[in-house]
């Protein structure tokens, strides 16, 4: 197992390097980040010259990449086009996003398992069909539509009814809120409920559908029939035999999907005005900011590689039939 993990990590580093070269080239060659400045007739030429020097825009591509790489391996992500430290910004934005993503992921897991279980246990009934329809609706509807609908048809009527902000539609917190964490908890909750619910609804559906499918497979397997035949109680059969085995593939799917959740968070943050990784990344793309874009992409690449590895390792632990390493 250790050899397997080390080998996967080594491959991961190689993938990261390759991705960094590809992304750097794509972003650097996408256009001139000084375009808007150049288009403004009032921008002094001296300022433009200084910006060109600061951003190394006249240097060859390989040299610019080397400057970036040699700083990144020392933990320095450089500065953005407007002179702010990228590493510091990445950290700040990451904590904002992780807050939403972690909460959404946990809630999505619970919801997906619950819904999948209900659907599987009531297989073929009206309940099952109804739940499946709902699942497919949320699977199909884009996340920003869910967000806009929640804002317009849930938050606004509730807030107007109570004549105060119960469900905030933009921002992560009230800037005027004071006190310690617990005193500010109602404000955090008010700002977190809608974005989290949006991301949950956009995420749970595919997992619920997959969970239902694996549950049905397991429920119809021979060892479950044997367990029932042996007189084991239905509850014990469900918990010890069915659910435990049905969770294995779903666990790996969730781990693999984590990067997709981050992508959904980008859109959710835009809809709700959260200043997270999504905004950080979109600002970087819009400004043709190589350092910002690469920092975001490196972060997500690391997350994808790590979670893929975790999925493989988890699978190996959960299913004793799976073993890694030399045979």
């Amino acid at each position, binding site marked *: 197992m250790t050899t397997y993990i080390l080998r996967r990590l080594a491959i991961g580093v190689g993938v990261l390097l390759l991705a960094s070269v590809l992304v750097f080239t794509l972003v650097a060659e996408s256009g001139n980040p000084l375009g808007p400045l150049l288009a403004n007739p009032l*921008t002094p030429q*001296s300022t433009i010259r200084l910006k060109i020097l600061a951003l190394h825009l006249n240097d060859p591509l390989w040299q610019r990449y080397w400057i970036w790489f040699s700083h990144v391996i020392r933990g320095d992500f450089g500065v953005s086009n407007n002179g702010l430290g990228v590493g510091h910004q990445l950290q700040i934005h990451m904590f904002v996003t992780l807050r939403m993503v972690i909460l959404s992921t946990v809630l999505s897991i619970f919801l997906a398992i619950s819904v999948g279980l209900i659907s599987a246990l009531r297989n073929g009934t009206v309940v099952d069909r109804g739940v499946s329809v709902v699942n497919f609706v949320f699977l199909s509807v884009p996340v920003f539509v869910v967000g806009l609908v929640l804002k317009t048809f849930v938050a606004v009527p509730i807030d107007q009814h109570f004549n105060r902000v119960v469900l905030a539609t933009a921002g992560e917190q009230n800037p005027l809120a004071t006190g310690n964490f617990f005193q500010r908890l109602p404000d955090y909750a008010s700002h977190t409920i809608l974005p989290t619910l949006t991301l949950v609804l956009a995420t749970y559906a595919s997992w619920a559908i997959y969970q239902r499918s694996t549950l049905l497979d397991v429920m119809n397997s021979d060892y479950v029939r044997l367990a029932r035949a042996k007189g084991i109680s239905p509850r014990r059969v469900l918990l010890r035999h069915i659910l435990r085995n049905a969770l294995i593939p779903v666990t790996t799917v969730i781990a693999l999907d984590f990067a997709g959740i981050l992508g959904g968070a980008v859109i959710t943050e835009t809809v709700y005005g959260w200043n997270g990784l999504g905004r950080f990344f979109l600002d970087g793309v819009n400004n043709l900011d190589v350092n910002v874009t690469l920092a975001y992409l490196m972060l997500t690449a690391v997350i994808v590689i790590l979670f893929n590895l975790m999925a493989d390792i988890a699978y190996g632990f959960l299913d004793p039939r799976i073993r890694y390493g030399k045979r």
Partner: protein
Amino acid sequence: MKISKKIRPLLAVVATLALGMNALVASASTPKVQAGGTITVDLNETLAGFNVNNVNSNEFVLQEIMQLVWPTVYFVNNKLALTLNTDLVTKVAVSSKPVETLTYTINPKAVWSDGTPITADDFIYNWQSQSGNPAFTDKGGAAFQPAGTTGYSSIVSVKGSNPAGGASCDAGSAADFNAGLCPNGKTVTVKFGAKTPFADWQGLFGMIVPAHQGRLVGWNTGFNINGGGDESTLLSGSWYYVSSYNQSANTVVLKKNPSYWAKPGNLDSIVFAGSTDDTSGIPGIQSGTFNVFEPVSTSLAMIQQAQAAGSSVSYNVQPGLQFEHFDFNQANAYLKMLKVRQAIAYGTDRSELIALTVGQAAPTTKPLNNHIYMNTQPQYKSNGNAYNHQNIAKAKALLKSTKKFKLEKDGYFHPTYGPEKGKDLSLNISSTTGNPIRSQTEQVFQFQMKKVGIKINIVNYAAGDLFGTVIPGGRYDIAEFAWVGSPFATGNNSIYCSYTNKADCGSNWVHFKNKTEDKLLAEGAAAANPADEAKFYNEADAILWKDMVTLPLYQKPIMTAWSSAYGNILPNASSVGSTWNAQTWGLK
């Protein structure tokens, strides 16, 4: 190009859009409002720093914040008239002989929030940092990086006199570049060069950076947001100060400046906080998440949303300062002919373009007939009336009269020379990708030109490419983008003066040159009074129409929406934005 809100001409802070100095303050009634309270304004851009005069932080929303924190000599009201800020400067004397000289008398009570008097040194520092003169350097010897130097580069000296309380003048220091300039003076004398008078001087000294803080922390990076408490030391010389900035949430809280020596702001605090996209705006106001919203772009859907919101949301749509236009690249073998450009202009139905695009959101939008002044400015003169209506017959006649184009059976003209010889006369139109209104405009234009007999191909680029290399490199035929209608007519000089003058005319991408135009633009920039300035610039504009240098289309509408619970919110079409009078806002 769409010059995004992020990039606004620095001097646009104090937009001069009307003739006459010292016009009356806000020409709208100021209903009674309650004292105290809080308002939240949406903040739809990520802040990079607080020095709005620096190129890295020159953002529209930051301007809206800092005009409440750092003092400005002249401000613009919602009727686009200039008003002297007598809280800061009690009077300004102007003389033009022997050289243009301005004498500001600073209010003796004016102080920064740390108790340091506002003096000539602040004016000296703000001139030096924005002059573009390499003799003046920032902290550590670095070159200043101002967002703009227009006007400041025309000044040759700024000197103080009459220190408060009859004190003697400070000697100043070489390190501060104010040796011998009486930096502690409460009277400031600004002299322009004999050959560089500047007509739009009222736009100078907007959002004045405190000199003693700027020198200490550095102009370029000292006001950058580091999230480490910098904002708590940010000095104020106006109604509000920056109480807190939350970098992770991108929110700014302004509170009343206790050191303000004149009538204080009405609201206790003004919060700038989070929406990142325009769809959040109206629901945000309805839910109370924020109270004032200015979308990046105005759409019919947004206006309908505001209408459907009922009495709880007030809104206003008016022509803004950005105007869409077509650039004609005269380096193109065919566009270099005046009659070809005129034919295109006659064939373009601007009213139809408007009706099918922005007119759906703002039906009162009309064609713009001036390159320099907007429809809403008193200096505006409609110099392009000849092109008010589409005239296909005249367009075709013009092309035929050149004897270089033959109308073929396929309905298109075939040139008898050049790269398209014997083929359909084809021209590319280029704009920014991902802009539905521009896409629609291009398609309608393509259809209109088909009737004239010119084939139009649509070739769009990402904004960075379009303005970074395509347009400046001359790799286009016709380009569609927006200029920000300069609040100072002088801001147009670099666009329309002869392109052969690369030093001063760097924004002339159409390869236009005309000596008479150069003379008129120079005379306008040096005009002794606003009436002469308008006269020269309108004459310059007439030449631009005669030569069909570019074709202005329309002023882009802007929308402001706000909660009806608040009073005194008066949308301002200039680049100062809706917070121009935020010190008077309050709950009804």
